[in-house]
């Protein structure tokens, strides 16, 4: 690998976008090249500095209100001066999205998206009669030991009844061709499946919420575990669940 290649690929390395074999090729080059290693360190530092800042722009409340109002109406009533360009722009958005089938052998599989699709399938399966729980209990001290010996990790099982999310049991599921723990909660009539799997990375990854096939998925990583909470609850309530769960695991560690 040449320095020129390495200096593009090191960004993909920083971003965790390389598959294992290309990552080790880049690392092999870095091992013998002090200049590229210095570049990597410099960009890592820049990225960390940037990540620590809030660079987002919050939408003004007036804009939010206007959009909410316009979405509630049958006919959009707020033509903008760009109305003429509307058709043109949408056409290209659709074709941009249709242009899938991207091939890039250096990228890892888009694990994230594939796994999220599997998580949603597993959630849907669980909703069929008799599939939701293998162990039924509202007691975390019953659910947690049930997982012992069934998985290579011990999912934290936390009772959040006081916070408005009732623990109803646990289940062994399969995602990404591996056994995975699912802890099942309920809010009103809505089921939340919290999937927990081991990850090799111990980096704390802040939560992100995605919407897939009408379900919300909140994904985060903490201390060697990957979490996906999936539900048909609204994004705000699912975020609340995730935040309360994370706060409770934090307390358990400290307490």
């Amino acid at each position, binding site marked *: 690998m040449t320095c020129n290649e390495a*200096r593009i690929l090191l960004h993909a390395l920083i*971003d965790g976008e390389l598959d294992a074999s290309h990552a080790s090729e880049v690392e092999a080059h870095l091992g013998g090249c002090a200049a590229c290693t210095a570049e990597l360190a410099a960009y890592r530092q820049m990225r960390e500095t940037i990540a620590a800042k809030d660079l987002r*722009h919050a939408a003004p409340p007036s*804009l939010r209100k206007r959009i909410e109002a316009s979405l509630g109406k049958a006919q959009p009533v707020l033509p903008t001066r760009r109305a003429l360009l509307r058709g043109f722009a949408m056409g290209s958005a659709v074709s941009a*999205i249709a242009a899938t089938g991207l091939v*890039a052998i250096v990228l890892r599989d*888009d694990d994230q998206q594939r796994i999220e699709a599997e998580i949603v399938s597993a959630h849907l399966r669980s909703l069929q009669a008799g599939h939701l729980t293998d162990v039924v209990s509202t007691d975390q001290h019953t659910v947690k030991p049930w997982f012992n010996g069934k998985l290579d990790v011990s999912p934290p099982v936390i009772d959040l009844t006081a916070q408005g999310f009732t623990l109803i049991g646990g289940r062994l599921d399969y995602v990404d061709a591996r056994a995975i723990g699912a802890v099942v909660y309920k809010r009103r009539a809505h089921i939340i499946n919290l999937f927990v799997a081991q990850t090799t990375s111990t980096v704390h990854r802040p939560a992100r919420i995605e*919407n897939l096939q009408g379900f919300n998925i909140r994904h985060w990583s903490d201390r060697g575990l990957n979490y996906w909470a999936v539900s048909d609850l609204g994004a705000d309530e699912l975020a609340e669940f995730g935040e309360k769960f994370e706060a409770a695991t934090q307390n358990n560690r400290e307490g």
Partner: protein
Amino acid sequence: MPAANSSDDPERARRFREAALPYLDDVYTLARYLLRNPSDAEDAVQECYLRALKHFDSYRGPAMKPWLLAILRNVCRAEFARRAASRSTPIDDAPEAAEQPPLWHEDQETPETQVLRDRDAVSIRRLIDTLAEPFRETFVLREINDLSYREIAEAVGAPVGTVMSRLARARAMLRSAWMAEQEQPK
């Protein structure tokens, strides 16, 4: 008024609001960085949501956030076209120069010990705003909207390799601008 069609369906509008509104700040953030003007950004975001609602029935993925950002981005491209048509002065970006070979060929070797000094969010935003368009877009989609390379590639309609080289270039430009500022304080 025409007979009730799918866009009159309140249930559909509700599903759309629940799926799409949580990303309002993401969409607005990208609009601000692309258009660099708050009121144009607001118009573009509103347009984006109306358009997304209209096409919600045919939406089958990708995930909601990249889908919305792709629409927003195309609304902004239309705005660029409008600006270019209404002004004789071109937008500051020069796409022809954009995809040229990477910067480090021409780059003087920066001392390896040189460390970027911490900056506040306002200064970093300003530095990002100085990046030329395709680089700024890729950079913001990656670092601020937190999209994967593949999601960015789909949203901007470019191959993943192009996304990768744009991002490398964007970071190189940002770093040079950052260093230039800290070496020559005003």
